[in-house]
Structure formats: C-alpha cells, structure tokens
C-alpha cells in the first residue's frame, strides 16, 4: 500500500474498527499521514511530501543544547 502523501511503500494497518469489521486505519511510517479505508484520500499537490524533504521541515520548537 502506497502513502497518498509521500508515496512511501512503508505503510501499515494502525487499527481496525473497535466494533464490527467496518473499517481499518492506515498510517505511513515515513510521514505519519493516516487515513481510513472508508476515505478516498486526495492530497492536494501543495501538501505532497518527498521522503527526503522531511528531515528539512521546520523544527518546532527548536531542540535546545544539552546541559553540560
């Protein structure tokens, strides 16, 4: 299964519906995008990610230096 946002193949089933066999939720192990089997994800181009760009996203809040 391919991630609809970053095209990574490293995805998995996060959870199945607690009641009945109604749906599953999938998650991408690379960008953490998640979606339900009852949805048809249509990620707009502006929100698509390349896996190699993720480490360069802004870091919030910045990680402080360790105390010496």
């Amino acid at each position: 299964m391919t991630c609809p946002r970053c095209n990574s193949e490293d995805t998995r089933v996060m959870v199945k519906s607690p009641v009945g066999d109604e749906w599953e939720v999938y998650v991408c192990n690379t960008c953490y995008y998640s979606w339900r089997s009852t949805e048809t994800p249509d990620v707009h181009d502006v929100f698509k990610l390349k896996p190699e760009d993720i480490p360069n996203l802004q870091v919030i809040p910045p990680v402080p230096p360790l105390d010496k």
Partner: protein
Amino acid sequence: MAKVYEGLREFLQTLEEEGQLVRIKDEVMPEPDIGAAGRAAANMKGNAPAILFEKIKGYKGKVVTNVHGSWANHALMMGMQKDATTKEQFFELNRRWDKYPVEPEVVAREDAPCKENVVDENINLFEVLPLYRINDQDGGFFISKASVVSGEPDDPENLDKMNVGTYRIQVKDVDRIGIQALAMHDIAVQLEQAERKNEKLRVAIALGNDPIITFMASTPIAHDQSEYKFAGALRDGVPVKLVKADKAEHLYVPASAEVILEGYIEPRVRECEGPFGEFPGSYSGARNQCVVKIDHITHRTDPIFENLYLGIPWTEIDYLMALNTSVPLYKQIKEGFPELVALNAMYMHGHVAIISTKCRYGGYGKGIAFRLLSTPHGMPYTKVVIVVDEYVDPFNLEQVMWAIASRVKPDKDVAIIPNCPGMPLDPSSNPAGMHTKMIIDATTPVAPEPNPRSVELLEPPVGTEKWEEILRDLMK
C-alpha cells in the same frame, strides 16, 4: 452566585434543557459527517446548538461538538441567561476576573469520576475515543479541544507554574500522538527545561471538561498564573475540583473529566506533523514537532469525546479566543486610562480590535490605540485598531460601522505605522512575524482638536427601555 457545572455532562444537560443541544441518533460516518455538522452548526451563528452524535460507525462511544459554539452556549457556560448580549458577558467576565486567585479543591481518588476506569495495558486510543478527520486536508485525525496539563521541571510542586493549555494533537498510533508546542507557549518553556537534561516531560491530557476549564485552557495569562485558580474565579468564586494524576504525582487534573490520557513527551524527538486546518481559516503545513507516548488512561464509564470544528471564522474555536482575549487587554489598558469603556478583540485572536472610550483631550483616540499596540498580546497580534466614542457598543458591528461612516475623515483619522511586530500565523504577515499597524480613529474630535461641524445626537424616545422589556417578554 452564578450557576456552575461539575463537568461536561452537567453542562450538556443544561444545554439540552435550554434547547441548545441536539442529538443525532442515526448512525453517522466518522468522515465527513462529524466535521461537516460542526461547520454547519457554525454557519447558524447566534444560538447554534451543541451536537451530540450517539452512534458512529465502527466505534463504541459518543462525540459532542460545538459545545462552546454560540453566544447562547457561551452565556450558559457562565451561568447567565442564554440571550445575554456579548457586551453583558464581557462585563460579567470582567467582574469575575478580579476574584483571582481561587484555590482549587483536591479530592480523593475514589471521589473523582475521571478514575472510574483504568487502562494501562494494550492501550488503544480508538477503543476510548471515536477519532476522526476534522478537515479534508488534515494529515490525520486530530484532537482539537484538549486541556494539556504539564509541570515546571525546575519547580514541579509550584501549582501556579503548572500549565493547562490547548494544543493541537495528531493521532499517530494507537498509543502515540504528536503535539504542537510553539516556542511562545508555556509548555515549550517547560519542555526546554526537560530537554536540556534529556528528560521526559510528563503530561496529563484532560478531555471533556467543565466548560470553564476548557475556556481557561485557551486564555492567554502569565506563565506564573494558574489556569485552575482563574477557573475558580470565573466560576464566580467556586473552586474547581482536582485530583492527582496517577503516573505523575505533581500533576493535577479536573476530577470530573471524561478522559485523562497520561504520558510523556519523548525528549529531543521531533517527527512530521500536520497539515492541520487552523484558526486563521487556512491550513498550516507539515513541520517536525513533538511526540507524546501514552502509557496510562483513565476515563468515566461510557466517556463522551468532546472535540471542536475549526474553519473559516467564525467557528467554535473563535468563541474560545473571543472574550478571553478581550478581557486581559481591557484590564491592562484600563489601569492607566479609566475613560476606557469596553474593548472587543474577538477577531482572529485580536488581529482586529475595537476600543470604546471617552476622550479626555484631543488625540486621545490615537493615544489609546498606541497603548493597545504596546500591550504584550497587542504588540504582535493586533494590526487594525478602531477607536469609537464611549456611547458606541464595540460588540455591535453595525454601530461601529456607523461610527466609521459618520466620524472618520481619512486624511487625519487613519494612521499607518510600518515595520512593526506581527503574528507569524497571520498569512498576510511578511516576513512572517513583521507587520504594518493601522489605526482608525472614529471618535468625535475634542479640544484642542477643532470640530468645525459639531452634531446633535438623536436620543431614544421616552419609554424605549420599557418597550424593549415588553417586546423581549413577548418573544419568550
């Protein structure tokens, strides 16, 4: 003494009795139904109801949304009549604000409904919370109305520095969530202390609370002021009931919460989070943000998941940053300028603000606008200030427009101040964090400013107030 609520359930009962809550008994889909109904409720404005979904496909529990999402519900939260005007609610909030601090009451674990059920093995958030996507382009399922409790690592026993704040939360796994802690937020100060020592920061996330606690969690107050003690003040002096968290003895949580998620922020870890539809009515993109591991859950039996819709204003979130933005600014300006009558800073967390004041001398309107623009919140957030006379209700936009239409001479009454601080989330701030300020002085000129065409204002006919009362009663 105003009516107060010991938890979400009591408040929902009052909302229902007052015709301010509707139940959806038919089964709904998590997407898009819950988000769409939240948007639809927001479109109703004035007396939009809370919506309680009783059956959601594939889930056990219920969801309630739009609990704070109208002026009627906001008034009932404060124990006022549901037709109380915004201005009346503003002044009531001002009155109660001065009761700070009210010490909370700590109850025993067995007296706290939030401890009725415990989950500390095989944690699965989906078993407890019917999670769903709020807006189509959100990067996952978000918890948008949590009260996140955290302590000060360098001063853990200090209740005043214990923080209760609302931060957006993205569900990343059955026991793992992302959380947004912007550098300007109190939790980021605490996180920095922990991360400098490479230590976990314990958090307790309270969902489904007394509506005043949720209201205070989204109110900007000083780092060493207690949200819980303020909640007691806004409950008109009635203390909030708290109980110790199970895994972090120094943290206190609302005893009547529907659900408490306990866990810790993993030190020095950041992971991809977002996008998320945010309060300025647009998405904020993907960033690398903090992660919380959930290791303990307590909840009431049959918990109700309270969450909010946010979109192009106004939606429920705007009611949670309206009067609680206006009141602190009013208090700060009133200290030096007793002529100030009221202040409306309800638009996008104070980006546009309206000041009603009596003018003591010429140029007073502009001067008081500068005072607003130099308050700690107003300096970055407020970019447009409208100043009106003391008899204009700043919460009545028709009156404000009348004041601008009839009082403003643009060449002398409009001032543009370039190169000032701005709020980065405002998409018109460029570079993010810088902005221009505009003052529109719609007050009547007073000496020594010349007023060459003075006017005689119309007065309401004798008996108007009596007739207002008659008409109100007939409408009940």
